[in-house]
């Protein structure tokens, strides 16, 4: 069994498939993780419900695709703002209050984590009651492309490229605009940021919304090539995003970008090895090993 897996790994076609396949998954994973990391880094809320925002993005895209025939790439511009608004609404109604109530950062983190565990109950079942539990998919641009002998779907490559572009745009926004500067300032020193006149409640809401936006974009792109999106798919992607930001380091942008590729490769290699059932176990083992050996992650401060 092990021997055959090694033989499979060695052939060039498989090598190419692993290199590109891992990178494609990695690009999408890092987009989700960048959103999650932004939410955690700025407002110390580890949003366990991020996978459900992703699912919402998928369903919005699916709705507009089936009812109005909107191109999935175009509907990124629809699903993104809708989920962005929803994220801001949730931040204002739920998490702002928790920030008021909590006495310390640690208390805020655990309390908001518990609130985040409650969110999926609501989001998943509302979607289930509207759309039903059948898996959905839009099947857009499913043409196979041959890269050095390995076959990939064009929509997957498109999604990966767009994910990487969006992540890089976010990096530029964080680096060079005043809002990005404010976000970084709050992540570094919340009290100091308030002292110099940054409205931290506004920035908290904005960063939470952007995190939701990014996961919705990822969901919109996932629905192009996966036809197994159900209302209950959220926790699966949450776990992957969690693994990415733990491995890359919480609060580090570069960490979540590169961590996304790392987890993408782990995921793809274990999927194409002879132990595909253990894929999630490998991803979780990455979390456990990193937390035990270096809790801050590879790029954490």
């Amino acid at each position, binding site marked *: 069994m092990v021997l055959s897996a090694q033989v499979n790994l060695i052939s060039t076609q498989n090598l190419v498939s692993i290199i590109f396949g891992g990178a494609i998954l990695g690009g999408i994973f890092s987009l989700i993780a960048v959103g999650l990391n932004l939410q955690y880094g700025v407002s110390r809320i580890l949003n366990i419900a991020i996978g459900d925002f992703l699912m919402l993005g998928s369903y919005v895209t699916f709705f507009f695709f089936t009812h109005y025939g909107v191109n999935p790439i175009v509907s990124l511009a629809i699903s993104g703002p809708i989920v962005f608004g929803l994220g801001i609404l949730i931040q204002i109604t739920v998490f702002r209050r928790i920030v008021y109530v909590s006495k310390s950062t640690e208390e805020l983190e655990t*309390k908001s*984590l*518990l*609130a985040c565990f*409650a969110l999926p*109950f609501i989001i998943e079942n509302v979607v*289930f009651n509207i759309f039903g539990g059948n898996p959905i998919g839009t099947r857009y641009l499913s043409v196979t492309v041959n890269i050095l002998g390995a076959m990939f779907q064009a929509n997957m490559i498109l999604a990966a490229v767009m994910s990487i572009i969006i992540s890089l745009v976010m990096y530029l926004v964080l680096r060079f605009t005043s809002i990005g500067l404010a976000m970084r300032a709050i992540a570094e020193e919340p009290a100091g940021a308030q002292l110099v006149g940054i409205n931290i409640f506004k920035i908290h809401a904005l960063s939470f919304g952007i995190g939701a936006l990014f996961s919705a974009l990822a969901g919109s792109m996932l629905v192009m090539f996966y036809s197994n999106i159900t209302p209950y798919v959220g926790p699966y992607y949450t776990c992957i995003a969690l693994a990415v930001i733990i491995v890359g380091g919480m609060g580090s942008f570069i960490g979540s970008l590169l961590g996304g590729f790392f987890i993408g490769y782990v995921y793809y290699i274990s999927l194409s090895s002879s132990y595909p059932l253990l894929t*999630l176990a490998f991803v979780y083992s990455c979390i456990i090993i990193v937390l035990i050996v270096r809790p801050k992650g590879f790029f954490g401060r």
Partner: protein
Amino acid sequence: MLRGKAANLTITLAIVLILAMLAVGPLFLNTYYLSVLEYILLFMALSVSWQFFSGSTKYISLGSATFFGVGLYFAAKYLAFSIGTPLPVIVLLAGLVNFALALAIGLVTLRLRGIYFVILTFSISQVAINVISWYEATVTHTLGTYIPLFTAQTSYYTMLVCAIVILLFAILLRRSKFGLGLKMIGESEEAAAHVGVNTGLYKTLGFAISAMLMGFIGACYATYLPYINSDIAFDFSYSLYPAVMTLLGGVGTLLGPIIGSVTITSLSEYLSVTLGSYFLIILGLILIIIVVLMPDGIMGMVGKIKTKLWSWINEENPKKKQLPT
């Protein structure tokens, strides 16, 4: 308000009354209500054992399902493959297995604090699910285990005895040196270390004992289920609900986990019957309201109301206070 002997007598009477009602319950209730009662007892015991470690040390663990599931699996395999071993022996063995497992996990992981500990315990329970389902699918080629049937009464009394034992355990350890040490770690770990609490030992032992209690509960619950697999045994709700119930009731109090578990379990049972698929939405809303509006839980609110009431009763007439000049 009652004080002193009268209060003690009332509390003792109430406890005896509740115990008697629980003991004779099976004579009057049908199977459905019996299973609801058993479910309430199950989550009560789980919340109390969760509170014992995570509530007092503030190391929030979302890995209860690991220990519950290991206990359940151990007991199920044992019951399925060896006939004749008395049930208490199996339950004790399941607890010991969990004790060893949690000792090993705790030694490595209890350096982490806060959110990292939460994620770590959660990941461990997920690895357990995936590895066991992989093992069953590829190595043994049998999914899950069938458990020999027990009557509803046997199963109920097993769970009742287990819950009472765990409750007694929690009450006895609460005011002991060990329990107070754990509580002090929760207040401030540095201060506890300075006063002379061996924080590493206390945390690891506390984690292991809490896991052992969860193993007992899991093993007792094996008498209720006809069939288990990894998804049933390691279900995430066994991790999430004890934490949420304790938070609703009030962390750090004795009655908190009990009140919280009884409230949430009976509420969710009632809502799932009356509202069907909408009930999870309501449950989610309730959880958010708990976290947002009741930071100290029901017991915290009761305490607040009590102090207000006392100050209102004892307050002297404001007119009297004004001294004549």
